[in-house]
């Protein structure tokens, strides 16, 4: 049994406390971190403003799967938070990591020290989480102020956004380990765009014919959206555990792939 574990998780794929060192490095390197953070906070706010204010009056009220009727802005806000968490995780984990991996050779240098591959993985993902957490809190505060949510459970949506961020940072990082040129970013866009558009962010899945709905439910962002919406509306049931489980599972698989692939590329 322990042998099997060692095979599945060789030392390089087990993180240590040194992962924090990579976090420190990133903090040091990002001199204009405030700009990234402002941008990350503004993005969902722009979405909300455009969709809520611009489109809201055309759409009118929306009825959720749970039978609740609410304003379009209140419906769309948690979805936008989830979408933005995904987008941020992807944009900020793919481009910089790609360049560090292939051009800057940052990780080669890191691995010449006692740091392990898993420390890199965990360090990078913690880094992404740190930012995602800041954005999410800012957005939720805005929702409170504008009255888009009144649920006492809403702060839980920040945790949900972190989970979405984790899932997609891991997935984005995993995807980067397969990329060879920056043109491959097109492929990532190809996956992100349908997720963005078809995950129940902008309207309930019930708009679609019933046979299409199960297909939409494959989308991990759909689970993220449902999770966040449950918190901001204060409506819970057992499906929540399922939504969270899907995200955790996907992120873990991503982590596993990253460790495997990084050991393969960096330590060959």
């Amino acid at each position, binding site marked *: 049994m322990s042998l099997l574990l060692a095979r599945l998780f060789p030392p390089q794929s087990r993180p240590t406390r040194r992962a924090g060192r990579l976090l420190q490095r990133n903090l040091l390197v990002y001199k204009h971190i405030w700009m990234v953070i402002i941008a990350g906070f503004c993005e969902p706010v722009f979405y909300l403003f455009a969709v809520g204010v611009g489109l809201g009056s055309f759409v009118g009220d929306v009825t959720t799967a749970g039978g609740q009727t609410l304003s379009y802005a209140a419906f769309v806000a948690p979805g936008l938070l989830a979408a933005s968490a995904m987008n941020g995780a992807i944009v900020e984990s793919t481009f910089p990591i790609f360049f560090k991996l292939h051009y800057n050779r940052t990780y080669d240098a890191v691995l010449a020290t006692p740091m392990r591959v898993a420390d890199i993985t965990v360090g990078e993902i913690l880094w992404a989480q740190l930012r995602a957490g800041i954005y999410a809190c800012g957005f939720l505060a805005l929702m409170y102020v504008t009255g888009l949510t009144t649920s006492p459970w809403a702060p839980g949506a920040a945790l949900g956004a972190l989970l979405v961020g984790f899932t997609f940072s891991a997935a984005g990082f995993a995807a980067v380990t397969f990329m060879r040129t920056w043109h491959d970013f097109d492929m990532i866009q190809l996956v992100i765009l349908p997720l963005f558009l078809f995950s129940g962010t902008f309207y309930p899945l019930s*708009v679609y014919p019933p046979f299409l709905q199960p297909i939409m439910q494959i989308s991990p962002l759909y689970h993220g959206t449902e999770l966040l919406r449950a918190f901001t509306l204060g409506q819970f049931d057992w499906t929540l555990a399922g939504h969270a489980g899907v995200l955790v599972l996907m992120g873990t698989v991503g982590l596993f792939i990253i460790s495997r692939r990084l050991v393969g590329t960096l330590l060959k």
Partner: protein
Amino acid sequence: MNTPRSLMVVEAEYRIYRRTWRGTVLTTWLRPILFLVAMGMGLGALIDRNVNQALGEAGYLAFLAPGLMAASAMQTAITEASWPVRTGIKWRKNYWAQISTPLTTNDLLTGLMIWITIRLLFVSTAFAVVIWVFGAGSFGKALMAVPAATLTGMAFASPLAAFAAWVKEDSTMIAMFRFSIIPLFLFSGAFFPIEQLPDFLEPIVVLSPAWHGVDLCRWIILGTPLTLSIWTELGYLAATMAAGWWAAARQLRKRLIV
């Protein structure tokens, strides 16, 4: 015969494109399809329940499609102009190799702009086809909007090349992407008439070339009246492109000729 030097840059781009076209071709076709299905039909289903004078009589899909064509050209132009310049200077470093040959920084820029124009023509034509297939407009009119969408893209390509040549860190690039592109996209008038916005925002939106592009494409395809005169709109797009070009030429020289 002497081929113009900037065409050599186009040729080099094409050589790389031959290897990477699969991803781009998919995005070229899928992006309009996905957007029209998700927003035009999905969200459209919610919107068309109500009577909306501001969106015209043809329904949300018909309102959205022309605007998205211009906005899509903008997005393509932004990615195609910014990352190649950034990597050419910083990561791939091909600009440094190129300027040690008879190529000048102006040749690099002209080559890139020609290349992006070709890509935009292609992407916009694909969009026109999708519009026609979805019944969101006539094929002839959609095709006529291709040059307008391409010009809209070019009005973004050259300023973005200038920005990418100026940028010192990748994090600035990423912040720019999230900070400016998304708002430009959302507030271009593609998704809703900008009259919906608070009054103080309207003049700001009108400054964006995207809004002019959307207005032009909607005029051509849907037949809605132009907000400004056609010469003002075309002139504004052309002027933005020219100003960006000038700035990009300057920045590239500053970065590379040291």
